[in-house]
């Protein structure tokens, strides 16, 4: 290594001269003592040795010393790590786990929460926290001075017919200026023109790149061609690039909103959608929020009917990122917190290993101090070593992160926002490197400070006997207590989640999922506009299905429970007028054929179920309500015989004829969304109420087919039967009801699985930590134990002595862990179900588990202590 310090050549020449003059003087002195000139020269040279080596070595003193010191430290560190392969392996693996898990979760957090949205000036993009129908959107677009607002519907399904087999595509209705507001450019063709969201101008569609490639063979001349969506012709005007994934990665096509004020139900009552926008130049988020409040009365005044005065009162404007990520933020941050705790445990463990080693290295350090090494130099050496260790751990951790991330992405529910954007990238690599170095400095500092303070005289004086410096040992005990406490918190968190999952999987969703196969039957919406056509189609389909072998019974519903969908509308309960300003009750309506309740095993509690006669046009309009709906609106009266109507149909009262058990309609945790006040069932037919205000029953239905046993395969027969009735009707999502239920459990399951993994690692690392400290202390106390045994202590007493020492540490850790858990688990109460964040049973069980693991970890060194031979122990010292 030669980094000449300035004028290197000149220095070399001078050095040459200096050595030469040394030789001359030495030779002259020898001559003066009587040697011949030749002898004297020869002897002086021999004495000097290899002059050029001397010059080289001397010249090297001028090299760039800090770098040289660093390299020397690194070489030294590498050598000392190689000398202790066991220590190095455990430390590197521990760190790899800690750093790897953190990197994986950080990638996720980075991709979902931190990375800016891939649109022009993403920091100016905003969204409202509540959904609005089309009418309010149009009003606010006209009024707002702070925002350029557009509407984006949730994912909807569209039948594509006329190009091969009929297929079901996922698309979104958007305002005409949706693309230009985001600043997104098409890959081909154009985006929508202004005004294309008006009736009669909206026969256009834009395709996603994936759809264009898969369904249209990447046809370069696709723009300008017409396709049939939901029975309507639409012109393809553009194709978006592959990285445009808004509002969801599933989106295959975009159509303009259909803004038709004449369709009052749809325009004002249904069609709730997300509003997003861009702040106008100079406007701030605060101004936009304030403006949203001032626009609210104008929006309500524009309604054709009187809206409750508190409608939309909770809506606010947030950054678009926040609007997209929503609930996922809390969960991700909790995960990030959990893995940081894991890293903390890993650090504590490695610090402990280093501490233990530092004590055995005291003499090495003392010798180096004696040889003139400064304290700073030794500190730097020790920290270099720990950073080297953590960099190794970080490199391995990247591998852990890489595989961890792919497992994570597969395990997380696919509807996690922005999951497709998540990857290990430069930013994440930087994070890992920083984490590794920081980790190294942090866990290296304590032991290094301790070691560099070594009292040289005392250490050298004490000769062969190791002096367990009290400070180091106290530090390592503290580390173990902290480690146990942090493990405790993680294991409690995992315990609470696992208990939630267990309770969840034990609770009945309100229906029986066994031996039921479901399938989506999706004629075009216009199919039902001919009165009676849809009813006849489904009656015929159900009739033919019942005749199939293995099929016991079959029924249809407009959406499966657990978030499969329902009609939504405001209702009026007879005799219970909504007070001025109060919220109008919102109902979910499940539209069913008569056998649905019996196939799903939803119990009829009072009154009667539906029959074929209820679907007749001349029949009286009847409904069935769920148990909790009945109790909420007609407490103690039983509900049967009461009347309700849709808000916009003043004269069509519907009679409640039955009450059935509650069903998990919303998701696996709750029967209905917080803003829904009741669940009712209506017979499939002309009397079904449509949220959109349409007269016809819904075209899209889900079949529930009860089979003789789980093995019955009916997919082919089902498709053939549907095709024999109508070639243009797609059949999709044929799957057992059980897997639909399992899918609903996926999100809580993946969260608890992640936490269980973290907790398992924490437990393992905690056990290793306790084991390390106790075995170290046993090694230190061999002599003391020997003396005790020589004085008559029994083996059992020695065992208790050692285990007791570990138990004390573990107890302290558990106590602190419980206190920490009480404070921290509250943060995750949103993820829990059926169990309180401070559930005493979980806390107690985890405390017992941790104590058990800790004692088991102490047991191995304790047995070693028990076997100490007093004679050997005493002589050894």
């Amino acid at each position: 290594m030669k980094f000449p310090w300035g004028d290197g050549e000149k220095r070399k020449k001078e050095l040459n001269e200096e050595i030469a003059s040394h030789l001359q003087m030495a030779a002259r002195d020898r001559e003066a003592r009587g040697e011949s000139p030749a002898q004297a020269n020869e002897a002086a040279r021999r004495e000097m040795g290899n002059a050029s080596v001397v010059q080289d070595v001397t010249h090297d003193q001028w090299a760039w010393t800090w770098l040289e010191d660093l390299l020397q430290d690194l070489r030294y560190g590498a050598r000392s790590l190689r000398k202790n392969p066991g220590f190095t392996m455990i430390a590197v693996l521990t760190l790899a786990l800690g750093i790897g898990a953190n990197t994986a979760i950080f990638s996720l957090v980075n991709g979902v929460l931190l990375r800016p949205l891939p649109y022009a000036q993403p920091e100016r993009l905003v969204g409202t926290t509540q959904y609005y129908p089309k009418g309010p959107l149009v009003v606010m677009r006209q009024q707002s001075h702070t925002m350029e607002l557009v509407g984006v519907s949730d994912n909807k399904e569209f039948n594509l017919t006329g190009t091969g087999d009929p297929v079901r595509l996922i698309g979104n209705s958007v305002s005409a200026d949706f693309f230009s507001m985001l600043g997104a450019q098409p890959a081909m063709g154009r985006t929508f023109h202004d005004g294309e969201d008006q009736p009669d101008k909206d026969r256009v569609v834009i395709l996603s790149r994936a759809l264009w490639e898969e369904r249209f063979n990447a046809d370069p001349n696709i723009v300008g061609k017409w396709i049939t969506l939901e029975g309507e012709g639409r012109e393809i005007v553009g194709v978006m690039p592959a990285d445009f994934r808004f509002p969801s990665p599933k989106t295959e096509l975009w159509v303009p909103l259909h803004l038709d004020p004449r369709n009052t139900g749809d325009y004002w009552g249904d069609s709730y959608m997300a509003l997003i926008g861009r702040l106008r130049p100079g406007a701030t988020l605060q101004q936009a929020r304030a403006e949203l409040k001032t626009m609210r009365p104008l929006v309500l005044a524009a309604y054709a009917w009187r809206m409750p005065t508190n409608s939309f009162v909770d809506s606010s404007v947030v950054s678009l990122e926040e609007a997209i990520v929503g609930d996922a933020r809390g969960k991700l941050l909790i995960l990030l917190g959990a893995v940081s705790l894991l890293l903390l445990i890993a650090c504590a463990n490695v610090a402990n290993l280093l501490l233990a080693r530092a004590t055995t290295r005291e003499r090495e350090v003392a010798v180096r101090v004696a040889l003139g090494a400064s304290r700073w130099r030794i500190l730097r050496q020790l920290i270099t070593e720990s950073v080297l260790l953590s960099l190794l751990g970080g490199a391995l951790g990247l591998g852990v992160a890489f595989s961890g991330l792919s497992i994570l992405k597969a395990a997380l529910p696919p509807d996690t926002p922005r999951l497709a954007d998540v990857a290990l990238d430069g930013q994440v690599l930087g994070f890992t490197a920083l984490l590794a170095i920081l980790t190294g400095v942090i866990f290296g500092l304590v032991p290094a400070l301790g070691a560099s303070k070594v009292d040289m005289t005392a250490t050298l004086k004490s000769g062969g006997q190791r002096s367990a410096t009290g400070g180091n040992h106290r530090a390592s005990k503290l580390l173990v207590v902290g480690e146990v406490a942090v493990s405790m918190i993680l294991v409690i968190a995992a315990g609470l989640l696992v208990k939630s999952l267990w309770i969840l999987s034990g609770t009945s969703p309100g229906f029986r999922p066994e031996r039921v196969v479901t399938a989506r039957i999706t004629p075009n919406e216009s199919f039902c506009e001919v009165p009676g056509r849809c009813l006849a189609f489904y009656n015929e389909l159900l009739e033919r299905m019942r005749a199939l072998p293995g099929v016991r019974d079959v029924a249809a519903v407009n959406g499966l429970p657990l978030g499969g969908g329902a009609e939504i509308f405001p209702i009026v309960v007879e005799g219970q007028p909504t007070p001025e300003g109060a919220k109008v009750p919102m109902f979910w309506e499940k539209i069913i054929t008569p056998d649905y309740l019996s196939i799903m095993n939803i119990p009829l509690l009072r009154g009667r179920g539906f029959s074929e006669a209820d679907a007749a046009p001349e029949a009286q309009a009847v409904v069935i309500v769920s148990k909790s709906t009945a109790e909420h609106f007609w407490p103690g009266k039983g509900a049967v015989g009461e009347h309700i109507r849709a808000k916009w149909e003043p004269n069509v009262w519907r009679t409640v004829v039955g009450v059935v058990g509650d069903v998990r309609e919303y998701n696996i945790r709750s029967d209905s969304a917080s803003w829904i006040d009741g669940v009712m069932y209506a017979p499939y037919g002309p009397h079904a109420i449509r949220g959109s205000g349409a007269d016809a029953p819904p075209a899209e239905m889900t079949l529930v087919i009860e089979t003789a046993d789980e093995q019955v395969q009916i997919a082919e027969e089902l498709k053939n039967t549907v095709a024999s009735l109508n070639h243009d009707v797609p059949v999709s999502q044929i799957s057992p009801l059980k897997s639909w239920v399992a899918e609903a459990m996926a999100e809580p399951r993946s969260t608890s699985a992640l936490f269980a993994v973290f907790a398992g690692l924490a437990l393992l690392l905690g056990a290793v930590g306790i084991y390390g400290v106790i075995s170290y202390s046993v090694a230190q106390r061999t002599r003391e134990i020997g003396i005790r045994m020589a004085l008559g202590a029994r083996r059992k007493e020695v065992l208790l002595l050692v285990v007791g020492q570990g138990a004390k540490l573990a107890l302290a850790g558990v106590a602190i862990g419980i206190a920490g858990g009480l404070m921290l688990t509250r943060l995750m109460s949103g993820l829990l179900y059926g169990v309180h964040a401070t559930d005493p049973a979980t806390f107690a069980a985890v405390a017992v588990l941790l104590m058990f693991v800790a004692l088991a970890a102490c047991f191995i060194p304790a047995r070693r202590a028990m076997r100490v031979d007093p004679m050997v122990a005493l002589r050894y010292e």
Partner: protein
Amino acid sequence: MKQRYQNRIELLQGTLDLLVLQTLRWGAQHGYGIALAIRANSGDILQVDTGSLYPALHRLERRKLIAAEWKTSENNQRVRVYRLSAAGKKKLASERSRWAQISQAIAGILGPAGEGSEA
């Protein structure tokens, strides 16, 4: 002669620095002179290896503990002369007390053993 050979001690790095600084306390000196002085003052026991001396001198110069300049000797020869800097004086004081500690410590270890073997 045998005894002489055994007494040729490999000087430890920190120790040589200390000896150089101590030697320069009596006045500026060139490398050869320093080597001679150390040998003479140790009763010929410590022979400074040239291969260690010059690196040590340049290392000390680099750390500004000593300063060097070219002079002409009484034999009319150009020599590089070193003298102690202020920082060097301070360092010398601290190194001396450290050395006292070490030798005390080592004596403490060796003391009883040495008596034992003599007895």
